[in-house]
């Protein structure tokens, strides 16, 4: 099994140590970067960016959103999971908008962190009940969610539509490839094409676009 390399930015040592101990206990995870804050994490990821970073929202120097924006620019392939004490909708919405692949509360069960990492690594995002509700609610009530999607009627091919549908049903790239009898590389190609068309930064962005433009329906 391929090892997932992880970077952690967290200024509370007790929490950080606990998190690292839990992750290193798993056979396929390896924490390769420890940082006090976002700035330090970005510094340390320069040469060897980890597959995934876990960011505490509130760290000195740079908060989770600023770090996410910067990381996405430098290492677009690094997945980002934000861990936070803040449970207000605004924090969740703004984090996802800036490109985070998932948002967890620090008082969520630690086992959920593992679940989230697995989900982010395989399908590109992790949303639990709380975050999906908040994001969907935001779309319905305000309708002004950024990233600003272009509203020109975007044409999707049949395959693209199928992929969007499957992405929103939490299919992984491998699963989509299998279902559509295509290679995973082809699916990756389609997915980045869809992102470009919709202006989304990640899979969550695609799903939000799809909900908003009624390409898919929510049960």
């Amino acid at each position, binding site marked *: 099994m391929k090892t997932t390399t992880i970077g952690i930015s967290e200024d*509370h040592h007790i929490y950080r140590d606990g998190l690292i101990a839990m992750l290193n206990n798993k056979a396929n995870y390896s924490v390769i970067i420890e940082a006090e804050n976002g700035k330090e994490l970005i510094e340390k990821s320069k040469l060897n960016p980890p597959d995934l970073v876990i960011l505490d929202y*509130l760290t000195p120097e740079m908060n989770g959103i600023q770090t996410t924006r910067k990381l996405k620019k430098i290492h677009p392939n690094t997945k980002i999971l934000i861990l936070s*004490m803040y449970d*207000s*909708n605004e924090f969740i919405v703004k984090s996802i908008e800036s490109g985070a692949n998932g948002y967890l509360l620090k008082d969520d069960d630690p086992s959920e962190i593992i679940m989230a990492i697995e989900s982010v690594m395989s399908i590109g995002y992790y949303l639990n009940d709380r975050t999906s509700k908040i994001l969907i609610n935001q779309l319905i009530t*305000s309708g002004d969610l950024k990233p600003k999607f272009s509203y020109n009627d975007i044409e999707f091919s049949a395959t693209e539509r199928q992929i969007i549908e499957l992405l929103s049903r939490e299919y992984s790239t491998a699963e989509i490839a299998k279902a559509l009898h295509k290679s995973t590389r082809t699916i990756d190609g389609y997915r980045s094409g869809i992102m470009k068309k919709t202006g989304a930064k990640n899979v969550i962005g695609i799903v939000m676009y799809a909900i908003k433009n009624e390409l898919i329906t929510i049960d």
Partner: protein
Amino acid sequence: MAGEDKIDFIIVTGTGGMLLLAVIVIGFIVVYQRKMYSKQRELDLVELETQKKLVEAEILVKEREQKRVAQELHDEIGASLTAIRFLFEELDDESSIKPKLKSSLKDITQKVRRISNDLLPSVLEEFGLLEAIRDFVNQFSSTNNISINYVCKDYSSTSVKKDVELSLYRIVQELTNNIIKHAEATKIEISLKSVKNSIIITIIDDGNGIIPSLANTTKTLGLKNIESRLQFISGSIKREKHQTKGTIVTIYKPNL
């Protein structure tokens, strides 16, 4: 004849003199009173200024202290509580107390978060007034089961001081709470906008239309709070009956 002339002269000059004297006395009194009046006004102004400074100092000290406590709670207590959760994972005993402990730990963490947020609204601190009111509206409408419509237009936090945003946020909170407590409303609409150099917030409800007086001597703590906040940011408030039902409150903060 000469004697009569003399008497006439005496009468005329005498009367003239008396009149002159009277004019001088009256003039003196007028000047004196004016002086006294302007002095009194000066004193009043000084007193008003001192009072305003006192109110400002009081609010500033209170907010600073609240901020300190909120951050300590959030950063220190909150972080320690969440760190304990990892220790639980390492506990391998399957005693029935474990889930109970876990759930009360979660409960305490949530309470700490709530108290910290009441003391210092984290959304306001991180993002600004526009988002903070939205967050307040979200939470308030779900806990009080009332529909609140929130509209914001052309508002940007960048040119607004945090002190001013916090005061406006507290005023909105207070007024919305008052509506729930006293107005028997079913709908509330809050709007926030910037026009030129000023901020205008309006709160409309469809309740009973009773306007609690700010000038009343027996005003509640909440109303006093609104008044001192307004004084602090040099803002004003207008409360009117709204069409056939409810009230419309306009908060105006000029000169950003």
